[in-house]
């Protein structure tokens, strides 16, 4: 039993750190650290930088252009990128649709899509949820009717993160109403420029436009863009949801946010004294730090196991539940540290180019919005209640 990183792993960390330090534009890192709005170009700049280095698809095997890293190496890479203030590599292409294409896609799909995901040429978004199908995803109703060599798709998807920038959307669609509802679903890759696709913004509780709904009206999708077999899409959907373990806990990002929380608590004043000297508040920081330590070691245990033997399993649910709860606690405490300065709503301050007068400290403006925004983490990719159902059924056999 040994909790220390090996010499090789530590050397790898140094290599990643040096590269990120040299390659990540300072103004992008500043936006991430300060909680400012990131543009499409910010995401793409970092994506392309990593792609050139061969590091953008940390979890991919070498044969498809990935670095072939172990799970522990991927974790180290995540940690270093997060600490440096790199934007996340958006998961929709690299971590979601790509593994499905690799596992179940045709040779032609692999040849066409995987390189474009790597290079950043195609921006992907996710078409899973519908207005009537959230936790009960298999009840989805977007229809795809087979007409010779293509499908005609009609329906509506929702909660499409950054879909306003997307070139492609991967969709679960209903191709049959026979049998169990899980048995009539297919997995389609749809070009967002197809006639009949409409993207509408959904303004979220923080006032920001991050999420969209996507409408399909008689959209023609070539049969060649179906992944795997017709009516077997549910299998691929579950594979996609269960595939991702590395990074699901968000340890790297939470460590960065914890450091920021401490920094804020040192700078904020309470009764004229540094807030961190207030025992009641400091204990709450301590509590979330202790929980983050438990999450970090748990994450490493899961990753170490992944490297030595097993395929991803229901442990992902544990990491998801705790990872999201900790992210939420951190954002809540950051906001709470501001006291009454959590109240002013100054959205222009989220624009890094804005040169107006800040209200309160310069770090204050994004924090309440960030807290509101982070409520999503216990709702998305299988709500925490669904995760507990998975634990009950898959781990405990209840």
């Amino acid at each position: 039993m040994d909790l220390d990183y090996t010499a090789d792993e530590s050397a790898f960390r140094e290599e990643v750190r040096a590269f990120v330090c040299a390659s990540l534009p300072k103004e992008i890192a500043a936006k991430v650290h300060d909680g400012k709005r990131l543009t499409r170009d910010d995401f793409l700049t970092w994506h392309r930088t990593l792609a050139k280095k061969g590091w953008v698809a940390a979890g991919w095997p070498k044969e498809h252009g990935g670095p072939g890293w172990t799970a522990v190496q991927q974790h180290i890479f995540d940690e270093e990128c997060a600490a440096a203030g790199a934007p996340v590599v958006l998961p929709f292409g690299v971590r979601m649709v790509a593994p499905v294409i690799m596992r179940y896609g045709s040779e032609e799909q692999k040849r066409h899509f995987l390189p474009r995901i790597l290079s950043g040429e195609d921006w992907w978004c996710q078409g899973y949820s519908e207005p009537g199908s959230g936790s009960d995803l298999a009840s989805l109703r977007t229809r795809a009717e087979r007409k010779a060599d293509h499908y005609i798709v009609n329906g509506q998807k929702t909660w499409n993160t950054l879909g306003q920038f997307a070139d492609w959307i991967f969709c679960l669609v209903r191709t049959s109403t026979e049998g169990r509802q899980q048995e009539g679903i297919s997995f389609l890759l749809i070009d967002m420029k197809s006639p009949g696709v409409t993207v509408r913004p959904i303004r979220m509780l923080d006032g920001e436009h991050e999420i969209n709904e996507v409408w399909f009206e008689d959209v023609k999708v070539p049969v060649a863009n179906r992944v795997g077999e017709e009516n077997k899409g549910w299998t691929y959907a579950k594979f996609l949801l269960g595939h991702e373990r590395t990074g699901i806990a968000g340890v790297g990002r939470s460590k960065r946010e914890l450091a920021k929380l401490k920094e804020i608590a040192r700078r904020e004043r309470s009764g004229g004294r540094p807030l961190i000297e207030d025992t009641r508040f400091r204990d709450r920081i301590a509590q979330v730090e202790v929980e983050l330590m438990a999450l970090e070691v748990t994450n490493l245990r899961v990753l170490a196991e992944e490297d030595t033997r097993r395929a991803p399993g229901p442990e992902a649910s544990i990491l998801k539940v705790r990872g999201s709860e900790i992210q939420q606690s951190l954002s809540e405490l950051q906001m709470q540290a501001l006291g009454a300065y959590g109240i002013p709503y100054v959205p222009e301050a989220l624009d890094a180019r804005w040169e107006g007068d800040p209200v309160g400290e310069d770090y204050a403006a994004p924090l309440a919005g960030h807290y509101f925004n982070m409520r999503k983490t216990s709702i998305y990719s299988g709500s925490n209640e669904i995760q507990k159902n998975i634990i009950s059924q898959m781990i405990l056999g209840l």
Partner: protein
Amino acid sequence: MDFSLAEERRLLQDTIRRFLANEYSFDKRRARVAGEEGFSRGTWKEFARLGLAGIAMREEDGGLGGDAFDTLIVMESFGRALVAEPYLATVVLGAGIIADAGNEGQRAAWLPGVSEGDKLLAFAHGEPGARYAESYVATRAVREGSSWKLDGRKSVVLNAQSADAIVVSARSSGKENDRDGISLFLVDPKAKGVSLRPYATQDGGRAAEVELHGVAVSDEARLGEAGHAMPAIDAALDRANAALCAEALGVIDALNEATLEYLKTRKQFGQPIGRFQALQHRMAEMTIKAVEARSMAILAAAAMRQGDARERSRRVSAAKAFVGQASRFVGQQAVQMHGAIGVTDELIVSHWFKRLTMINATFGDADHHLGRFSDLLLTEE
């Protein structure tokens, strides 16, 4: 990074579990804790024969040269079986502090005896006014020529009534809370001026209040440098808390297994109660806590290798705080989900629950350790 158990540790675990399965059923334990001493000297000798008493002791002191991960395996198994023998008091605390602070003569006089199962020890540090404050020592040590005179009172000294020697902390200078001025002494419990008020503990163990009235102790019985015992005391408490985290782990897993089994077999409203989502989610949360508590017990054991005492204590406090909170949750929910049978003495569930509760109260509860961790934030970086 490696979280697997090395082959010899796996064997150790199998050996202990097999022994406990045969010799330490719940009924046999009941008989043991009802006895005069609260444990069995015969079983203690068996533990020693299996190598457990000297497992983490240096080979030159008569041990097997293991480390905190071996202690983790022993304590985890002991937790599950609710072992009442004085392993924490004798091996982890007593022998640990003698190995750490004692000179060659003291180590030779005590450690091989502990390793062989012939000697029992206790550690008398806590005091009525200290609660959990690590450096609060009001007991006085006054030097008189080549000996010392000890006066004071030590509280809840685990297994003091069975000990052949008690390691006592006492102050020769400074105020009650000063880190400087504290020394350690090996005290014979039968010496003049030592009086014990022995009692049973809530979880079936044994402890005593130890009064010291002008107890004369020779200077040869002093462990380590006079007035500078705090580093050794901190290390001893960290070692004990890491071990308690491991013990709690064994109890938590046992409670979760029993509760899960109960959810699958107990029927109400015509179906197993595990079909109800309210209980499923509670069980899922208990499972998450158990997984995370194991991570923290591993972290605490690994911390014992830390050269930096501050970082060692910081990690152990994080672990004890987390495991304390997890223990409280799992213990209370396990009892709750068992319903009325969970609050009877008949079922082992209530005994596990009580042991977890007492582990939390031993050497600092979750709030204390969270506070210690929290206070270190003030001087970070």
